[in-house]
């Protein structure tokens, strides 16, 4: 076991585990896009950032790839972390607004505007599909191709790979094209509407409980 401090709490956690695993075990919620319990961590989406180190000498690291270490001081929701997380979510919205997962995360983090030029990409290169294919299916049918801004997911020679068994795992696990939402209206990338797809709204169901916060329906009516 490794002893460390997380958000002021002294905790002990299994050696070799990541900060993200430890945080989740203790019920601390950290958003992720490229993490999946069944796959090797990849550290690409940067949403799981946490602050490590003593105040004044601390830095941000991705919790999914950072191992628990004796005496480490970790802060999962400091102002510095939240500021970076929000800006990253704004960038995600500006890049790939049609992902329901991204829209939900943005809503949850109160990201309500996009100040960057709007793009409409389908892939955020989180690498879940390539890792799923390689690690779970032993397929290696797809992989990362190219560097920097040219990077994309592809197969060897751009042909359908012999190794592909059409298992569909890649599209199942994709956070960008899976369960794609209808998308926001053209003017803005911020949607948030799906939070109200089937709202347990007191207007319609007298004995339902209202727990949505924020609730887009209320906000639109100007009741909050």
């Amino acid at each position: 076991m490794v002893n460390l401090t997380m958000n002021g709490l002294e905790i002990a956690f299994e050696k070799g585990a990541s900060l993200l695993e430890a945080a989740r075990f203790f019920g601390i919620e950290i958003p992720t896009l490229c993490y999946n319990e069944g796959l090797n961590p990849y550290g690409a989406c940067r949403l799981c950032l946490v602050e490590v180190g003593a105040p004044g000498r601390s830095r941000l690291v991705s919790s999914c790839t950072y191992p628990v270490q004796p005496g480490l001081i970790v802060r999962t929701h400091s102002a510095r972390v939240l500021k970076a997380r929000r800006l990253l979510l704004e960038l995600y919205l500006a890049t790939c607004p049609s992902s329901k997962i991204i829209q939900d995360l943005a809503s949850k983090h109160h990201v309500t505007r996009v100040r960057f030029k709007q793009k409409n990409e389908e892939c955020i290169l989180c690498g879940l599909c390539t890792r799923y294919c390689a690690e779970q299916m032993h397929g290696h049918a797809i992989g990362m191709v190219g560097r920097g801004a040219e990077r994309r997911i592809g197969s060897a020679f751009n042909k359908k790979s012999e190794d592909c068994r059409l298992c569909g795992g890649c599209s199942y696990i994709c956070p960008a094209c899976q369960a794609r939402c209808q998308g926001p209206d053209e003017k803005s990338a911020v949607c948030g509407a799906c939070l109200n797809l089937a709202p347990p709204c007191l207007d319609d169901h007298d004995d339902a409980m209202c727990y949505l916060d924020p609730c887009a329906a209320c906000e639109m009516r100007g009741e909050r």
Partner: protein
Amino acid sequence: MEALQARLKTPADLERYRAAIKAKQETITHRLSVCGGTGCAGGGSARIRDYLQDYLARRGLSARVALRFTGCLGLCERGPLVIVSPGEIFYQKVTAADAAEIVDQTVLKGELVERLLYTDPLNGEKYVSANEIPFLKKQSRFLLGDNWRLDPASIEDYLGLGGYAVLAGCLDGLNGAEIIARLKASRLRGRGGAGFPTGIKWAEGREAPGDQKYIICNADEGDPGAFMDRSLMEGNPHSVLEGLIIGGYAIGAGEGIVFVRAEYPTAVKNIRLAIARAEEVGLLGEDILGSGFDFRVSVSVGAGAFVSGETSALIRAVEGQVGEPRQKPPHLAQQGLWKKPTVVNNVETLANVPLILRLGTESYSGIGTASSKGTKIFSLVGKVNNTGLVEVPLGMTLREIIDDIGGGIKGGKRFKAVQTGGPSGGCLPASLLDLPTDYEALSEAGSMMGSGGMIVMDEETCMVDLARYFLAFLKEESCGACFSCREGIARMLEMVEAITRGESSPGQLELLEELAAVVKEASMCGLGQTASNPVLSTLRYFREEYLAHLVDRRCPAGVCRDLISFRIEAGICNGCGACRKSCPAGAVEGKKKEPHRIAAALCTRCGICLETCRYGAVLKE
């Protein structure tokens, strides 16, 4: 030099061999060092060497006149260079046709070939000895200074200068911990970019459990315009190799690897040759000099991506994977190459090691400032009179480097900024010219030491355009794995490009700053963590220039094409028609001998008319 009969088995063997080399060298009366560095080789210095060789043979002088083809001698602009010693007579802009004259006049008669001597462009004085030339004299060439004294292909030359004595001394009398203690005392810091104390890094490597360890020499050198590591590898490969062997001994590694980019064929060739020669004489391999220490070195040639110079990416590349960084910890000293403890050091760092042990830590740490010890090689390029590699004590001010060694700004223009630290360094303004070049001072000013790139800019450089240039480079070179780095750099570039086109709006500067700060904090490796520096430093020191683009839609330096226009001043134009004929867009109109006009709708703002006009009638606004 006669081949050695058997491998050297003891330090005494080495000293006997060295004495034999020196005795042999006594019979040489003159030496001709022809620069084989990149610049001079481009100017045809190989041919000069061949001519000299032929001519020496024809005159029967080959036995007593030694000819060397050396690494870079430093004043690339004046190449090809030849140094004749004794006297260190410095000949510049030499051609193959001068070969015979150099031999006849200088070697045989002891007379100078006046027209080949160097005249300083600033003070107009002529110099004979290489040691007197201001550009070289004001430097402290501890690492580069031997370049003209040795042929990189010859281990005998290196031994003749006292090479490998330090290694022998270490193997004979010091254990790893003692060597590390000396390095710690010298306060040597890594020259590859991060400036991490080498002694501490070696101690971590030594203390890491495991009997198989590696030490890697990082010769990836990906910064555009930088060539200090190349110059060391090409000019004095044995000094790097000696540092690597000592490092291997100190941390307990059995294997060393030199990772060098394929774009450096001469460096690859010279280091391979150096390894082969060291193996032959017994300075590499099993039981080196009878110490019981076994060490081998191999060369790994990389494809030359900028990011693969990052240590964890480099290790993946050596393993044959795609050169992408990974998150640390686990640190390389615990889990490096093939998951074994590994130490990675830069070329220049390793070349410092034998120097420190030879000078002694006390004299060594007398060079430099309180926190930054020793010398640093800078690649001084851009708008200065003397460009090239300069080696100076750490802490020398930017002004001394640029004015005293670099000879000031070309063409009498005004200094505007200097970019230090390579593509992800920062731009410093004239008000900071007296800043000392030490690690802390540079980072506090928003730049960094990096690996030693130094680009000087004059008033004709637009700082927004410069930030755009570096961002474009980094966008290409990011591995693309981290979202913050990949998308963040692309978005910063998008925003800066909009500013250079006059298509931005005021709030964008604040947003750019906000984004730059997050890219710096959120990215995994050093590339993303420093990618914002060009933007942040130009915003910090040249904000009014950004505002001029943004608010006034004007590029003060006259660089950003979308924000400038050309006009012909009717009062000056005499209608010669030169600009009309040269304009590739056909945008200049006017009758002969009458003032011409530029049709704004057709003009592509290429500036050819401005260059063509001999009367100064074309104005850029």
